[in-house]
């Protein structure tokens, strides 16, 4: 007799691979329990594929629902969710989609889908109280250089090799021209959102380096050095003041 662990291992395998043979002998109910089990297989696949499609409507618009759904069906087989919150599922789908054998050969596909994923994440964020400049400045220069800033939770940074922000903007505003020329150019994107609102901004290389380093919790001194590597005229003090003035800094710590 199989232990519960054995039964569950077999059911998991059958569910994900859509192959009922491993569990056929374990099942009971109805005239053909194996066909009944297909209801669970169908639910697993359909619910997760629909969840992926729901998170990537712009990508569906770009390459078509067949291509995205086909990749999503393969994705749910090789990358089941790891947690019960399905809102967190799909972060690795952009890379999977771009490499999927039946996906269109579109060079910007991965970064466009990644932008859409990040946009979805920030749009459900809630702003934390912003820090005012006097509180930041009170740390002094030496303290600030060692400090790690905490930025708003509804912020993400993405570097792309194509002008995907223009394409996304055209989709979001339903203003796609008959012919859209996608420029191949470095884009340094700041994706900002909260409570359903969304803004995708384009930064200079040095500002992007500075802000994304701070977002990654690197000390302010290190972030400034990295930004100076991108532009030797980078003014860290001014950039920090702008960041605070924009309400993007919520805490300063070590």
């Amino acid at each position, binding site marked *: 007799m199989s232990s519960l662990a054995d039964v569950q291992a077999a059911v998991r395998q059958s569910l994900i691979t859509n192959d009922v043979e491993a569990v056929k002998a374990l099942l009971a109910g109805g005239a*053909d329990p194996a066909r009944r089990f297909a209801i*669970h297989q169908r639910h697993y696949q359909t619910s997760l594929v629909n969840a992926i499609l729901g998170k990537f409507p712009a990508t569906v618009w770009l390459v078509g629902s067949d291509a995205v759904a086909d990749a999503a069906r393969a994705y749910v087989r090789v990358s089941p969710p790891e947690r019960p919150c399905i809102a967190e599922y799909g972060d690795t789908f952009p890379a999977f989609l771009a490499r999927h054998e039946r996906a269109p050969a579109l060079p910007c596909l991965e970064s466009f889908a990644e932008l859409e994923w990040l946009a979805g994440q920030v749009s459900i964020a809630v702003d934390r109280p912003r820090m005012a400049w006097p509180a930041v400045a009170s740390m002094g220069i030496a303290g600030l250089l060692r400090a790690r800033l905490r930025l708003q939770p509804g912020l993400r940074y993405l570097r792309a090799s194509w002008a995907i922000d223009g394409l996304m903007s055209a989709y979001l505003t339903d203003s796609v021209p008959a012919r859209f020329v996608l420029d191949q150019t470095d884009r340094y994107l700041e994706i900002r959102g909260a409570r359903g609102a969304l803004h995708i901004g384009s930064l200079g290389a040095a500002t992007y380096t500075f802000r994304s380093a701070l977002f990654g919790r690197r000390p302010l001194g290190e972030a400034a050095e990295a930004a100076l590597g991108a532009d030797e005229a980078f003014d860290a003090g001014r950039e920090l003041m702008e960041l605070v003035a924009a309400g993007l800094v919520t805490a300063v710590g070590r």
Partner: protein
Amino acid sequence: MQDGVATRRSIAPRARRAAGVGLRLPHLTEVATSAPPAAWFEVHPENFLANPHAMELLHAIAGRYAISVHTVGVSIGSAGGIDRVHLARLRQFVLDLDPILVSGHLAWSTHEDAYLNDLLPLPYDDETLRLVATQLHLVQDAIGRPYLVENPSSYVGVGTSTMTEVEFLAELARRTDCLLLCDVSNVFLSGHNMGYDPYRYIDRFPAAAVGELHLGGFVREADEGAPGDEILIDSHSTVIAEPVWQLYAHAVRRFGPAPTLIEWDNDIPPLSTLLAEATRADTVSARALMGQAV
């Protein structure tokens, strides 16, 4: 942990006698801003834990309505143990909202590193009973209150079961002092699918442990393994079927009044449709308790 009856009494003053409705994301802003005439709302924490904006709206709603928490992610039947990370998140969710009820399914959904996004059947035997009882104690300790275990919707079972679902639930309630959530629609459709009498199921259900009732819609499909037969799918996508209202009246007569929830998770209609179903549940319940036909 108190015994089931005493705990149910302690819940009763806070739970509304009127039926509540499931609060899903499409209705969240409407409920937060317009205060519709609902008795109480039930939420799935998994819809909110990774969505701070939805959580913010839910906090506002919880200030005006009683909230019931119904988890689909605890997986009390997983042989590999409960996902402790998710349990910790659930615990914080419950502490934040102070719900009138916390419930989940007699099923499993998690295997090792995979969450399978479905409520999968368990073998009803001693091994499963020991495991579920142990894990249920962990859950109840974590959330600091009774956990209501819901009878699942069934299309297929595990052939090695040595006891019926009702026997399993009754023994689970006896061992853990958990409460039971009787999903009347699940009883009806599982009875149809698995070939048992749903009225007999209700008659044998441990009434003293019942803390809540559920009602949801189902759809009919051809049973591919039995040409000409139908199988009922627990879709939560339509109104409650007439035979289920009859079974609900029978359940109310047997169990007495209990908080009743209208579930609707797919093809979600306007909130007014859910509220109308809740009103009908109140009417059916009242008539059943007065001994009138429904």
